[in-house]
């Protein structure tokens, strides 16, 4: 079938004329009215091999996704091999289209014109006689164009493939059953200790406390114990001093509690009462410092 299988290296022959068009009998008689004016000349007839029903021309042109798409169309329509484009012919046809679009005041994207220039350039390069010696190394001037066309064609096909995939909404849909009882549980946000420390650092830095207080080992255990002592005091009027200590905590624990009591005393948060020398010491929350029952979150 194909005696046309060529030599190893493609022969870069110029196809300068359009494939002869015969069979004109089939041309519909729609050419009474000029549908375009080119350089003042009314055009009543489209180039035959470009025949498109005039009313459809706009839709036709809109159907192209740019110059590469149009070129691909021209090539495929003529059953030409993309790897052996008869550049002169394709350029001619392409130019016709550009003209048409232009004449119809079809908003012509700049890309189309760039392509026209590219084609013209390739054509002229192919017309130049190439030195015989360097023939082997000479790259086919069409190579880059062919590469781009192929690259575009793959994604044009890929788009069709993707379009053919079974997809939601069009082909399949998510199956759902009604949930009558839906219990929504809100998950509380988590924080990390690190986040907390950074927040503290920044709050402190802003407040200048580093400079005022000088950096010191914060007696945090004392602070914590202050809270604990306050809470343990809140229910009773007086608590015996000794009850605030837990001997199981050892010396450090006792010291911490003692410091906490002193600190609370200093801040007037508690009263310490001793009715007689060496008598039992009692501690109570300073008047007005009692916790209101209202908001206790944890015991």
């Amino acid at each position, binding site marked *: 079938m194909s005696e046309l299988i060529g030599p190893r290296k493609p022969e870069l022959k110029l196809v300068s004329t359009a494939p002869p068009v015969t069979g004109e009998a089939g041309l519909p008689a729609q050419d009474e009215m000029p549908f375009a004016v080119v350089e003042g000349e009314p055009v009543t007839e489209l180039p035959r091999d470009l025949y498109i029903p005039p009313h459809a021309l706009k839709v036709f042109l809109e159907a192209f996704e740019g110059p590469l798409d149009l070129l691909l169309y021209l090539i495929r329509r003529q059953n030409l091999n993309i790897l052996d484009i008869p550049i002169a012919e394709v350029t001619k046809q392409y130019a016709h289209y550009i003209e048409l679009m232009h004449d119809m005041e079809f908003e012509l994207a700049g890309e189309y014109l760039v392509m026209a220039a590219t084609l013209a350039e390739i054509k002229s390069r192919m017309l130049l006689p190439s030195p015989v010696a360097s023939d082997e190394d000479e790259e086919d001037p069409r190579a880059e164009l062919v590469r781009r066309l192929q690259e575009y064609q793959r994604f044009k096909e890929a788009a069709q493939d993707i379009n053919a995939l079974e997809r939601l909404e069009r082909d399949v*849909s998510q*199956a*759902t*059953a*009604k*949930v*009558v*009882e*839906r*219990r*929504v*549980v*809100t*998950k509380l*946000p988590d924080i*990390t*200790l690190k*986040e*907390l*420390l*950074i*927040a*503290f*650092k920044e*709050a*402190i830095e*802003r*407040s200048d*406390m*580093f400079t005022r207080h000088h950096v*010191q*080992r*914060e*007696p*945090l*255990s004392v*602070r*914590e114990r*202050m*809270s604990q002592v*306050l*809470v343990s*005091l*809140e229910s009773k009027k007086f608590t015996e001093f000794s009850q605030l200590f837990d001997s199981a905590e050892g010396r450090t624990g006792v010291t911490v509690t003692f410091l906490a009591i002193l600190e609370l005393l200093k*801040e*007037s*948060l508690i009263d310490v009462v001793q009715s007689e020398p060496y008598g039992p010491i009692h501690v109570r*929350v*300073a*008047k*007005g*410092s*009692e*916790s*209101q029952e*209202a*908001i*206790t*979150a*944890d015991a």
Partner: protein
Amino acid sequence: MDQSEIKNILEAALLAAGRPLSLDQLVGLFGKRSAPERQTLKEVLGELAFEYKDRGIELKEVGSGYRIQICSSMSDWLTPLWEERAPRYSRALLEVLSLIAYRQPITRGEIEEVRGVAVSTNIVRTILERGWVRVVGHRDVPGKPAMLGTTKRFLDYFGLKRLDELPSLSEIKDLEDLNAELALPEPSPQSGLLDELEEDSRELIEQAGVETELPDEKGGDVVSLAHPEVN
């Protein structure tokens, strides 16, 4: 058309619709000419209901028609599906909480003094509700402001035995680059989709070429970056 085919269509329709379908609507699926008898459809629906016995779903007739619904016996199992994640805590909340931890017992006014801005009631309520802090007393000054302190639950949450396991101020001060390592909750900017995830993307560029999964914020995950091209 045999009954099993009808059954397939009815089941598919009920699961696709997401709303109850009346008998008329079910008949309407079959077009005018080939529509089965209403009686046939009812029988098929009966079969369907029977098939769902001992399953997690059931066919139920409600006011506006038939629907397939999840059995109430399943609802305990499914609660993880509806778990909502509350928005992350604000920077302000973290600061308030940290100040209570380090400076307890402390009043709201004292917190405000340090932070230089008012402490919102919401923040206080949130950390009280969370059980991290509690009112440990009231300061004997006009207004008798509540003093706040941390709870055992606070220690448990952060895995501390005692409060003094928290680093000291000087230790914190050394953590200069702590900030950089940690993505702190900032008020999230309502940026356009395009700007979203810019942060992630830096990372991604570095990893480009490697198979990567990014956590998704909104749009779903970025899947494998490996080149899918097949030649």
